[in-house]
């Protein structure tokens, strides 16, 4: 099951890759940048803990990675109807409750992005064919719908955490 999912998701990524090439040709006013980071907790001599974010270091199965997408209106006109769509990367599992995004409605998909719903309402077909609540690790996509408009020069940030499978 896992292997098959991996293969399918790889195909999915490959298809997305070809999409992105096409999209880059028509550069819009909005730019989006994605980064991956890990958190390390440092304990100082005084015992105080500080959390540091770095590019993924020594990332192994079980490591938690933070993906952050920064979107910026680089044009000179206000943008509206902003929707950010992010497939959960292959070989990772969404960490429950980790999606963040100021002034955004956050919805999830567990069927490869066909349908979206709030985390608590998300259903998936079980092996018995009946609908059951999707587990966070079964999420395939996250979608942020930005409430309001993004003026020229402004930016926003959305993201989530996922665990390497």
């Amino acid at each position, binding site marked *: 099951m896992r292997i098959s999912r991996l293969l399918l998701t790889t195909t999915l990524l490959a298809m*997305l890759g070809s*999409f992105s090439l096409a999209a880059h040709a028509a550069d819009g006013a909005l730019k989006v940048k*994605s980064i991956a980071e890990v958190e390390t907790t440092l304990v100082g001599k005084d015992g105080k803990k500080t959390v540091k974010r770095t590019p993924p270091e*020594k*990332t*192994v199965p079980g490591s938690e990675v933070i993906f952050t997408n920064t979107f910026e209106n680089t044009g000179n006109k206000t943008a509206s109807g902003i*929707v950010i769509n*992010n497939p959960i990367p292959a*070989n990772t599992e969404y960490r429950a409750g980790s999606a963040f995004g100021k002034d955004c409605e956050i919805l999830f998909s567990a069927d490869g992005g066909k349908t979206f719903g709030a985390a608590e309402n998300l259903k998936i077909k079980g092996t018995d064919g009946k609908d059951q609540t999707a587990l966070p690790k079964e999420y*395939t996509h996250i979608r942020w719908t930005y409430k309001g408009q993004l003026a020229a020069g402004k930016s926003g940030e959305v993201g989530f955490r996922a665990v390497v499978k």
Partner: protein
Amino acid sequence: MKNMLPQFNFHARLLGLCGGLLLLVPQLGWAVGTPSGTTISNTATVSYAIAAVPQPIVTSNAASFLVDKKVNLVVAEIGATATAVNIGQTGAVIPFSVTNLGNDPQGFTLAAASATGNPATGGVAPFATNDFSATGLVVYVDANNNGVYEPLIDTATAIPNLAAGVSRNVFVVGDIPAATLNNQQSVVSLTATAVVPTTMAALVATAGADTAGVDVVFADGAGVAAGDIARDAKHSAYGAYLASGVGLLMNKTVLSVLDPKGTAIVMPGAVLTYQIVATLSGAGTATNLAITDPLPANLTYVPGSIAVNGIAKTDAADADNAQFVANTVSVSLGNVASPANFVITFRATIN
């Protein structure tokens, strides 16, 4: 994209192809981690409108990183109970399992050692007390992983290559000294060390900062063996031999000496009274227990002197269980339930 149908088909095909392989490796209990060297990549897309006019979808860069090599393993004694052994038994077996919890295939070297004193850490019951040391400890790998030690098949002493997420049975094989007492326990530790597959070269954790390539990350926990700290590519667990069954202790003494002058001087003509005490300990039944004592050449048996537990016996090989035949005192006790105690006395004259 990820609907159930293609998954199911693929799975069915996988089963068909790998049926034989799955039979060979029946213990696929652990989730297999993403192999090292896999690139994990995140890409977001944004759709938006300017003045209510939908704009082309914008795609982010791919934020990506490599999955590093996770080295992790766990050693466990199978059954969490001391292995019952007989006193004096050779080739006594304690079963363990070694599980590769990393994300890549790994080799494993194996070493068994007797605990020193009572285990301080990890010495939870039933492995808390250490009364004696089993000897000649060797570790053998269960070649067909059937959980049964087969000396002719299970001859390898290391695991050259164990797939990620897979367990392999191994056996600690040792000898129980004859001087062991019933209910004494010998605690042994088994330590497995993850190594490079096949070459069995030592693994080295990548020191310092992350590198662009695949880093080696030790993720194992501390084990029970001395010096087995966390993140050292080793893990260890205790097992134990528990001496049980029937133990037989024999003690022969000269109970008294009576010389011809009526004193107790050992001299020709003096009569020695011998006492043999046979003590059965532990649980079980000793079958066809016979105690024989050939007399040395310089002694002459005193006819009719055999007594068992204070009851006089005849010398003939007859219905009573004691006899003196071929210059040998012998007592046939038959099947005896342990614990039991027998006192045999007889007399002999010094020539």
